[in-house]
């Protein structure tokens, strides 16, 4: 198999695209109710919705408390979101691989950007 870009560059580009989307596109996203919310309104079960237990936390509803510029507040919350999601998922999958993985003799050899750490899991 062939690759056009190095793995490190691929990862970096992916994260830049994600950051660009939350910073520049998400402030312009539609604020209309989503499909479920709309159905709940139309069918009269929206009243059942309860306030979120964490509604007063600093980043609730994709806004950063204390940042008055709405677009910036949304964008920053998105940056916080992708950072924490990347870190949480990375940590989870690192742990899953260490505890649940097996060595993959059939796996693709590491690219130049991979660390040389041996892949076998205990």
């Amino acid at each position, binding site marked *: 198999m062939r690759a056009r870009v190095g793995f490190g560059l691929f990862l970096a580009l992916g994260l830049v695209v994600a950051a660009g989307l939350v910073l520049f596109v998400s402030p312009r996203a539609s604020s209309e109710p989503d499909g479920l919310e709309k*159905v709940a309104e139309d069918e009269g079960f929206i009243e059942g919705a309860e306030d979120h237990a964490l509604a007063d936390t600093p*980043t609730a509803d994709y806004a950063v408390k204390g940042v008055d510029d709405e677009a910036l507040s949304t964008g920053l919350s998105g940056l916080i*979101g992708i950072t924490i999601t990347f870190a949480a998922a990375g940590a989870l999958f690192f742990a899953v691989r260490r505890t649940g993985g097996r060595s993959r003799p059939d796996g693709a050899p590491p690219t130049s950007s991979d660390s040389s750490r041996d892949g076998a899991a205990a």
Partner: protein
Amino acid sequence: MHAPDGFIDAPTSIAMGALAAGGVGLALRKAGADLDEKRVPLAGLVSAFIFAVQMLNFPVAGGTSGHLMGGVLAAVLLGPWVGSLCVTVVVVVQALLFADGGLTALGFNVVNMALVTALGGYLVFVGLRKVLPKTKGGVVVASGVAAGISVVLTSLAFSLEYAIGGTGGASVATVTTSMVSVHVLIGIGEGIITALTVGAVLASRPDLVWGARDLPAATLAPDDLVGAAS
């Protein structure tokens, strides 16, 4: 599709929480074998990317919006087990950090948005791959169509939960009809975004696409420029 607390009664929410825990537990056990050195950071990137794209609500008919759920996207890139965990991480981060999706609703939100889309949607993808040509284009089309169908599957899953434990008085038939009809439209958006993203990864790093690993190398890179054979 993030349900708040209160739409579904407590016993059903607890049951769905147990189902979610069972599904995630199974995925955790199966995912280890699918993770090699590159797929750990790749799964982190896919999770972060799905988080980002979930913020991009696009308008659909009648004053409604929708956003990507990402289960099929993650499953095509990483396999269904790792993929379902990627979306689970996103849904949990959204609920805990951004108050998006209720805490007692976390179980059925994980089932609907992560497990049904990634596992159910991936089965659709596998079925489509059997009838479509074994080319990059075939993978892209199968991804897009499966992604669209996965959204409809999810709307059916919510309707089933509403039928079992919905707290509102609306009839199950009208809720189901409304859910499916609006989510067919949202599914079209999901399909387009998924196909574009899978196409972009296939163009740059075809070796990273789990759902295309059966394609012969020659099919994957006929127009390769750099060509670092691995």
